[in-house]
């Protein structure tokens, strides 16, 4: 028996957990290969045209696994915080996959996650495993405990300031973790990179923005590196919080970056037609003037245009770097290329 894990959506956040879980249960797993043109095309074929790109990617990964695995893990993510939820598309994901990908109906394995924290190891979410996979409740409890430990270790690495792509290379390919750049150099540019893990770390969707920023010598901070308490403290001013936990985390991280003097600018990577982002993007954009920090939105979808991304990211980083140099007095006159002006909504 083989369980397929699509390399999409929350794979990037929970894979170490799932991997350990199945390992301890003694069930073989197969992970789909990284998103490629073929997978993308499959996804487009089986999903509604106007749905957001991460869902199309997920659909493509399921389609790629359908022949290779006996079961496919399509979790129904309902909540990971009290009174908050996931985007409706996550909540209806198994329903959607069941009726769109041919042959998926009998293969879907969908634990229903209704947790009160990021940790998803409560055995009650996984009752389906006992019936479908034929594991005993005791085995399941033990495996979940071990998986939880593994996942906490993984989260620690994030909180030390490593980007997920480096962590996965460390965990999977035993490559060394790069050293974290300390903020000693006064001209070091630090950018708060906002976006859901499945957009930013999917190298096909984000056109590997992490690598591009690193090549430009930028220090990157993302929301998963921050402490939850810190994130939620920074959106305490809101009368009514958003309904989506990960969107709240992004928004909280956004305001944290605005308030943190070591962050020089924000880049928001969002998928075309992402509902939650249409609200948080606007809120952060409206407030960027007040905090005097540049904010740029990069909208991605299944159309790839790497050239434009590189140009915009480069221009954005250059602008910040020049501003920094000027403020330190290293540039004593303004030349023809003004760095001033309203850059909201670039």
């Amino acid at each position, binding site marked *: 028996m083989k369980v397929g894990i699509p390399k999409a959506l929350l794979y990037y956040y929970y894979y170490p957990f799932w991997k350990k879980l199945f390992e301890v249960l003694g069930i073989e797993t197969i992970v789909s290969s990284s998103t490629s043109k073929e997978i993308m095309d499959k996804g487009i074929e089986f999903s509604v045209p*106007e749905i957001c790109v991460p869902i199309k990617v997920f659909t493509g990964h399921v389609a790629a696994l359908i022949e290779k695995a006996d079961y496919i893990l399509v979790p129904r993510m309902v909540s990971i915080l009290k009174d*908050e939820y996931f985007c*409706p598309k996550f909540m*209806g994901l198994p329903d959607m996959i069941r*009726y*769109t990908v041919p042959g998926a109906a009998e293969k879907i394995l969908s634990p229903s996650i209704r947790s009160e924290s990021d940790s998803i190891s409560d055995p009650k979410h996984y009752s389906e495993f006992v019936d479908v996979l034929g594991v005993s409740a005791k085995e399941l409890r033990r495996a979940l405990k071990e998986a939880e430990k593994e996942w906490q270790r993984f989260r620690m690495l994030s909180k030390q300031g490593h980007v997920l792509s480096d962590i996965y290379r460390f965990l999977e390919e035993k490559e060394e973790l790069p050293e974290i750049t300390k903020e000693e150099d006064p001209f070091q540019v630090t950018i708060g990179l906002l976006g859901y893990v499945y957009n930013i770390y999917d190298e096909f969707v984000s056109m590997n923005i992490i690598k591009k920023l690193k090549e430009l010598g930028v220090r990157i901070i993302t929301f998963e590196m921050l402490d939850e308490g810190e994130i939620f403290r920074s959106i305490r001013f809101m009368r009514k919080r958003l*309904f989506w936990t990960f969107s709240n985390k992004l928004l909280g991280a956004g305001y944290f970056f605005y308030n943190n003097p070591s962050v020089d600018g924000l880049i928001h990577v969002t998928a075309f037609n992402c509902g939650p982002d*249409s609200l948080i993007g606007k809120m952060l954009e409206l407030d960027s003037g007040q905090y005097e920090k540049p904010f740029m939105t990069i909208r991605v979808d299944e159309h790839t245009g790497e050239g434009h991304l590189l140009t915009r990211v480069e221009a954005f980083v250059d602008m910040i770097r020049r501003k920094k140099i000027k403020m330190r007095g290293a540039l004593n006159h303004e030349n023809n290329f003004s760095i001033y002006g309203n850059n909201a909504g670039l």
Partner: protein
Amino acid sequence: MKITFPYMGTTLAYKKFLDLLGHETISPPKPNQRTFDLGVKYSPEFACFPLKVITGSYLEAVEQGAEVIVTSGGHGPCRAGFYGELHRKILHSMGYDVDVIVIDSIRRDFKTVMQNIRRIKGKNSWRKLLWAARLTYRLIKALDDFEMQIQTKAAYEVSKGDCWRTWDKIQGILENIWTDRELEAAQKRCQKIIDQIPIREVPEEEKIRIGIVGEIYVVMESSVNMQIEKVLGDFGCEVRRSHYLSQWLDDNVMPKFLGKSREEEILKKGEKYIQIQIGGHAKETMGHIVDYRDQGFDGVIHLMPFGCLPELVCQSIMPKAMEELNIPVLTIALDEQTGIANNLTRIEAFIDLIKNKKRKRISRAG
């Protein structure tokens, strides 16, 4: 304090409620091109269409002097539950000093809800508030009852436009009731007017019934859905909607112990396609389609705002569901790009298909 409210469906009922409590109310104009333009200009680009239209209609109301906006909240996880907060932010950033009162679900935040209800109550006694609520509820019931009659009769009217003209007239009459007795008299009068509309006789087997399902705002507000009910009536179809104001009140405001609501039944029917409530009206949409099939409807039109999160899940499921349920469904996404001619063609083709299918079935049976 001048009060206004979002424009959706038969707004005369909301106005009546606030008027009965002695407030000065400003009804925003029915959404039109200017409303859309204003809304699109000042709302987030990728926000859903209803949010934009409501932004526009708030702005028009504020221009007319509205100081307070009363709206209903939501408990997610669809974007509609956050409208109030976002509208407040947009209006304030434009420099308008308006107060947005969001009546949330009482289960989520009891204290604030009671506070807000007290503000709307004003100096009136609780008894008067209850009386006003009851009268408004009866008014809404009456309105929905008449509207359903119109939705049926419009398919068979002899001279085109009769029914919807009558509907306007009925709204005009019901707008002027102030007491229970006046309401009863007006109801009798309206019924008489409806009964007088001449209709042609159509044999039962040739009648076509279409259900409209989808996101509540685009289903209920005719100015954003190309007046789809009128269009379908002109094609000779009887129409029913998945949302009526009175049903919404029954489902959301009435206490649960007063009996099993219709909503639960509908949700049960939708369970096969969407197992849990995923926000918005996705599960209801699937439930209503099953329900319309069970009632013997001939087709369903599924309306959604472009990019609507929950309805996209429905749309994904739709091809398979249609096949399994053996009922044709046409999904139409609506937004500020009003491609009316395009959508009308699609609807016409859809109705033609249904008519042909029906004719074939009849001839085979005969």
